[in-house]
C-alpha cells in the first residue's frame, strides 16, 4: 500500500463519524522507484490531505515533506520530487491502520490492508 491510498482511506465502521486519517503503524516498508509525472501530481494535489500525508510519511521515516503545502509550491521541481516520493514510491508492507475514533486495527500483511469489517461493525 502506498501513501496515496492511505490518504484516501477512511474508516467506515458503523457509527464512526471521523474515520480519517487512519493512523499508520508501519513495521516494514520498501521503496520502489517510479517515473515522476508532474501532471498527475498537479491533478491529485487538491485532493490530498496534506497533514495526513506528511504524518504518514514521517511514520515510515521520510521527513522531507513540509508541514504545510499550497498549490504555488507545485512550480518547484524539488517540491514535486518529494511529493512524488512520499505519495508513490513508499510501500508499506507490514503493519496496521488504526481507526482514529475506535482504535480498531486493520492489519497490513504482504502490503495488503485487511479492511474487512466484523458483522457488528457494518
Amino acid at each position, binding site marked *: *500500500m502506498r501513501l496515496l491510498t492511505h490518504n484516501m482511506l*477512511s474508516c467506515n465502521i458503523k457509527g464512526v463519524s471521523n*474515520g480519517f486519517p487512519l493512523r499508520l503503524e508501519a513495521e516494514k516498508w520498501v521503496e520502489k522507484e517510479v517515473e515522476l509525472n508532474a501532471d498527475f501530481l498537479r491533478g491529485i494535489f487538491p485532493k490530498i490531505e496534506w497533514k495526513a500525508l506528511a504524518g504518514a510519511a514521517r511514520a515510515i521515516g521520510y521527513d522531507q515533506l513540509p508541514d504545510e503545502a499550497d498549490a504555488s509550491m507545485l512550480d518547484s521541481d524539488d517540491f514535486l520530487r518529494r511529493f512524488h516520493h512520499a505519495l508513490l514510491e513508499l510501500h508499506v508492507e507490514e503493519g496496521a491502520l488504526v481507526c482514529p475514533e475506535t482504535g480498531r486495527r486493520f492489519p497490513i500483511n504482504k502490503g495488503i490492508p485487511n479492511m474487512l469489517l466484523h458483522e457488528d461493525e457494518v
Partner: protein
Amino acid sequence: MGVFTFVCRSSGADWSAKQLTGDLEASASSTYELQRKLVQAALAADSSGGVTSSFSMVSPCSAVFQKETEARKNRVMPRPEIQAPPEIFYNEAEARKYTTSSRIIEIQAKISERALELLALPNDGVPRLLLDIGCGSGLSGETLSENGHHWIGYDISQSMLDVAREREAEGDLLLADMGQGLGLRPGVIDGAISISAVQWLCYADKSFHEPRMRLKAFFGSLYRCLARGARAVLQLYAENMYQSEMIMTYAMRAGFAGGVVVDWPHSSKARKAYLVLTCGPPSMQTSLPKGKGEDGEMCSDDDESGDDESQTVGIYDRNRPRKKLKVNKKGKGKEWVLKKKEQMRRRGHDVPPDTKYTARKRKARF
C-alpha cells in the same frame, strides 16, 4: 436428464422449497444456502452431468428455482455465485486459472479495455486515480496500468489478491468487501471500473447478509467517493431480470445517472452488459454511448461444443475477425432456432414446444 422445478417460500428468516412434480425438498436459512441444497438434491436424483439453474423471486417471500441437467456434451456448471461465497469460490485453484488460462486473461483484458473506454476520461494523457472493484488477480487493473493510471483494487478473496501480488499488480490492493461500503474520503476518485464482480452482491452468502442493504452500502459509498462528473463502469453478469433491476434501482437511488450499454446483444455468449453511471447532475456527458453490434452487426455465436469448462466469462470478444463477422451477417433467425430444436428433440432431449414466442426479438437487458 430433465428439468427440476421447485417452489420456494420464506417464513421469517427461513426458506423452504418443494419440487413441483416430485418429492424433493429442502430448507435453509438463506436463499443462497437453499439453492445450493436444491442443486445437490437434484444432482443426487439425476447425475447425468452438470446443471444450469435459475432462481427467480416472485415476491419478496416466494420464488421459483429451476434446475436443468443437460447432456454431457452441453455440460454447463451452475453459476459460480450459487456454488459458494466469493471468498471460498475464488480459492487458490480458481485464482490460479486467472493467471494460467490465456483465454480468461484475454477476455478479461478486452472487457477492461472497453470499460476504460466507456469511462470517457478526458483525452489529455494525464494519469488518474481509479478504482477496480472486485479486482481479483489484477487482470482488469493491468489494463488500467498499461494506460498509465493509478488504481486501488478491492477484493474479498485473499487467494485472488495473493495472485495479484505475485503478478506484481501495480495498483494498491485492499482485502475488502464492497458490500460493506468502500471506506474512502468523498470526491477523491476520478473513475471506477468493476469487471464481472458486482452481481455477487445479489446473493446472501451469510445469514446476516441482506443483498439490498449491501447494494445500498456499495452504491452509496461509490457515489460519495467519486469526483463530480466522474463515471463508474460496471460490467456484470446478472442472473435474471429481477437482479438487474435490483442493481439498477440501487444505483439510481444512490444518485447516479446513466444506464446500460450492451455489446453484442444478440449473442448469448459474447453479450456483455455495462452499467455506465455518472456521478452528479446530468450533463452532455451523461448520454449513453451505443453498444457494439446493437443494430444487426453480428458477432459469431457458434455451437457451445468443446467447452465443458465453464466460467462466468464469455467466449467471444467484440473484436471478432472480419471474416467471421461476415459469415454470420444474417444472424440466427427463427428458422435456425426451430431447426436446432428439432435436432435436439431427435436426440432425445427435453425441448420446450415451439410457440409464437420462439426466437422472438428481445429487448436489451443485462
